């Protein structure tokens, strides 16, 4: 087994490199992805090694990034677009939901749209407005898109390659505050599982905690803290947000009878609402408590000096766990 010690940032970078080596049609495009290697250095070194034709610094226009990526895909390319920050994806919204998501359907399958949109997302980095958002739910309501989020270096390395290999458009949400956390040994030989599968990252008995991206680490910390109080949490890293791997989630809920969903995005119409609705339909008799949701408040992402109070943390998760157990 070949392994390499990689942070999440380096893992995605290595995954991009592997995908570009394997398939010459893969092109990387976005703002500052060339010489700079992106503001987070995720594309570091790629332009140097693959040239300006395959690593394209685009003009500063996000609709243009996705719109031209669609055209490149029509010509047989496999564009991997970087949106610099979560809050800057919205100028491309029309191209994503009305064009990218629908092109294959419109063409009755005669064209494929192997476009990946990488989005560094989430808060907790002390940034100014628009740099800490979690817009995944804005896209998950859109048929035709697939959405995933990685939470660790191994997934970063493998999931980006799997996303690039997909013939459907994939939105790839990267938890930016985890980019430069501790490096781990990544197995470079075997992918950890299919792209659209959730993973039980900690087994437990009393309450299931479903989360993704930046919240996986937080949920695991909460589970560790809960264990000390004798509460056993099962933590699920959803990994796939659209479609969701319901089987894995439901198996867990049937076991624990309780579910808490955690994400940074606002609770109202966040992923948690879909998960709550669906799980309640499917596991109605098994649920001991309503599905509880922990997430952002119904405010815009606040100024960073108070973001720690806005973001779900260990305590907020444990609070929900306790409320769930109190039913």
């Amino acid at each position: 087994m070949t392994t390499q010690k990689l942070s999440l940032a380096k893992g995605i970078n290595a995954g991009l490199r592997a995908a570009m080596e394997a398939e010459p049609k893969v092109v990387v495009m976005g703002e500052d992805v060339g010489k700079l290697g992106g503001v987070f250095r995720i594309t570091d070194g790629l332009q140097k090694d693959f040239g300006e034709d395959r690593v394209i610094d685009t003009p500063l226009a996000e609709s243009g990034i996705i719109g031209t990526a669609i055209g490149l895909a029509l010509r047989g390319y496999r564009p991997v677009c970087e949106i610099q920050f979560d809050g800057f994806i919205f100028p491309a919204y029309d191209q994503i939901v009305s064009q990218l998501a629908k092109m294959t359907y419109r063409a009755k399958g005669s064209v494929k749209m192997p476009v990946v949109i990488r989005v560094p997302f989430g808060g907790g980095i002390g940034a100014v407005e628009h740099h800490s958002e979690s817009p995944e739910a804005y896209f998950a309501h859109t048929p035709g898109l697939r959405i995933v989020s990685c939470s660790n270096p191994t997934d970063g390395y493998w999931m980006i390659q799997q996303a690039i290999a997909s013939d459907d458009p994939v939105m790839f949400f990267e938890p930016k505050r985890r980019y430069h956390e501790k490096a781990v040994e990544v197995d470079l030989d075997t992918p950890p599982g299919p792209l659209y599968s959730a993973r039980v990252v900690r087994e437990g008995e009393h309450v299931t905690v479903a989360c993704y991206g930046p919240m996986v680490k937080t949920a695991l910390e909460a589970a560790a803290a809960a264990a000390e109080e004798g509460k056993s949490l099962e933590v699920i890293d959803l990994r796939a947000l659209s479609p969701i791997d319901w089987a894995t989630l439901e198996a867990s809920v049937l076991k624990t009878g309780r579910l808490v969903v955690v994400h940074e995005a606002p609770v109202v119409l966040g992923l948690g609402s879909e998960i709550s609705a669906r799980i309640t339909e499917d596991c109605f008799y098994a649920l001991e408590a309503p599905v509880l949701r922990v997430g952002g408040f119904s405010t815009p992402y606040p100024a960073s000096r108070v973001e720690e109070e806005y973001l779900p943390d260990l305590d907020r998760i444990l609070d929900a766990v306790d409320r769930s157990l109190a039913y």
Partner: protein
Amino acid sequence: MTDSAVGTRAETRRGGPEMVQLLTPEGERVKSPVSPDSPEQAEYDQIASELSTEDLRGMYRDMVLVRRVDAEATNLQRQGELGIWASLLGQEAAQIGSGRATREQDYVFPTYREHGVAWTRGVDPVTLLGLFRGASHGGWDPNAHNFQLYTIVIGSQTLHATGYAMGVQRDGTVGTGDPARDTAVIAYFGDGASAQGDVNEAFVYSSVFNAPMVFFCQNNQWAISEPNERQTRIPLYQRARGFGFPGVRVDGNDVIAVYAVTKAALDRARAGEGPTLIEAFTYRMGAHTTTDDPTRYRIAAEVEEWKLKDPIARLKAYLSRGGLADAEFFASVDADADDLAAHVRKACQEMPDPDPVTMFDHVYTEPHPQIDAERRWFAEYSESFADGAEEGAAAQEVAR
């Protein structure tokens, strides 16, 4: 009070001396008044003079046929066979002239009104009707004729075209000198669409990357009820100036000039000389679509005036005068048009509605559990009605 539209009709609506025209409304072949001794003008003249009689007769035939199909489609809509129809009436020369200037390997990105261009690319008109009938969202294979699906969100396709052209560059099929390989991309859009951010971003990307693009704007003077001067206060072809590539206004009702100008621009693109904006100055003779009522916003006199510039009558006059075609030819074209229209009518009327369950197809290329579950549910649910068993077992699973 605000001075809210400085661009007056007169300013933005006259073709003006800057308009390339090779055939007068009366059908006389002329040298265009635009800097008549410029190399561009010489090139247009040269291209036009290389058109064979067969080419010219072909152009005429194409225009008559697409007009006839267009009229048939309007009828079919009135009879309830189509949900809506966007007529190209008046824009035949702009579309046939430009479409015929493309080569097989070129790629076309249309709006929803490019029935004439589609025709030049070999797309069966019946296929187009499927969209307007509501039987599909287009559904043809764009790569079969290098003719992308109709795009309804105005302007979006200009970015797709630009991206495609960037792919062409990366394939190395620009500027090789091999006429069978060098490839250009042409994107159609309307005068209204020119205001969209996407179109201007396409200008930025195309110019910065020097993409092999032709932007073909059919300025038919109207965007539904909004006159052209609501989108610009200077002639639209001048927009290109702001982005550093050439813009040219051509008489959009002069099929020869349109052909020449488009061919020159496509040649430039294929040679690696970058993008061109063409403004085909034409007129939407009919309603915006069959649901529109233009009497609410424009005067009949304007339409009458443009009738005098009819693209088909103009070429017909030229062909007749020059002895390039006789009554027999014109009659045969009319007969062909009738046959085609009859075929289109019949095929439209006989077009089956899609099986509802196919609405679940092709949402994704690869398997998708959510779609599969919904398809299953739907099939069983539908069957429960067929059986008369309205509350059958199918209803167990929820619609998800």
